[in-house]
């Protein structure tokens, strides 16, 4: 399995993501830059966190109009695996590969801390090594993470199992206190209808080794590479 880490001007989690794939997972990985449009050599495209194009206009807005984003769109449409983390998630919603949008945090602050995530669907390419209800500790670091999708669409997404993760408290309940950014229904990660494009605000690449304080994020990477 060969990974592409998609690099836009202002991406800043690109090396962390590359490192986890190469050194922890021991899988093939290459950087692909925003002006490129060929992803044919890869099985999975990862859009890392950061501030692509300085978050100008809206986070992810300008990155979603680049040649690489167009290639990611086609790649995702063809059923290949696409993962967007943080700013990558924002780019995927602006690209319309994922439903919804990410608005400024309700408290208008940059929030950087560990959160608890409850797995809502354990039967996807990125969660298949986990079970529904499992709790993961993974950090977030964002200013615009308030997931929004209209109510009707949210209901449909729920029914189709498109909700991947919710922010929860120690008891595993999606309370208002456990919601770090005001996301609708405490949503931290979603997937597309077809189940091959994934987006999440938390950073699994920052929780993939014990020395980082948690290795819970590893299970997502393991899920991706396991048969």
């Amino acid at each position, binding site marked *: 399995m060969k990974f592409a880490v998609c690099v836009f001007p202002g991406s800043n989690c690109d090396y962390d993501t590359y490192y986890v794939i190469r050194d922890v997972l021991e899988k093939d990985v290459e950087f692909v830059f925003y002006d490129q449009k060929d992803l044919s050599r890869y099985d999975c495209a990862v859009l890392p966190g950061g501030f692509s194009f300085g978050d100008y206009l*809206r986070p992810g*807005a300008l990155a979603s109009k680049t040649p690489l984003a167009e290639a990611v769109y086609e790649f995702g449409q063809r059923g290949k695996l696409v993962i967007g983390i943080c700013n990558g998630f924002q780019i995927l919603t602006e690209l319309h590969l994922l439903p919804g949008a990410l*608005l400024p945090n*309700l408290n*208008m602050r940059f929030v950087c801390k560990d959160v608890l995530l409850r797995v809502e669907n354990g039967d996807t390419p990125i969660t298949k090594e986990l079970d529904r209800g499992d709790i993961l500790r993974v950090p977030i670091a964002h200013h615009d993470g308030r997931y929004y999708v209209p109510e009707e669409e949210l209901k449909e997404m729920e029914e189709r199992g498109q909700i991947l993760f919710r922010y929860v408290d120690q008891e595993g309940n999606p309370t208002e206190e456990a919601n770090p950014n005001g996301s609708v229904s405490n949503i931290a990660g979603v997937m597309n209808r077809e189940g091959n494009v994934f987006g999440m605000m938390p950073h699994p690449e920052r929780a993939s080794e014990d020395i980082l304080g948690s290795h819970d994020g590893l299970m997502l990477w393991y899920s991706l590479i396991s048969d």
Partner: protein
Amino acid sequence: MKRVRVLIKPKEGLLDPQGRAVEEMLRDNGFKVQHVKVGKLVEMEVEEGEDVKKLVEKFIINPLIEDYEIEEL
């Protein structure tokens, strides 16, 4: 060339924390205001005949979360 101004604001019904904070500040200072929205403005010069509406809807705003108005200057 003509000059156009695009006014962008949070979509009606969406919680706008900036607008809410500004509204509270104005009220705290004794002004009788409500429904404050904070948005942004994009100005540009475009050639006559350019499809400004298409440009704005496809490249400038996100219709899921934003409303807009185009003004010709």
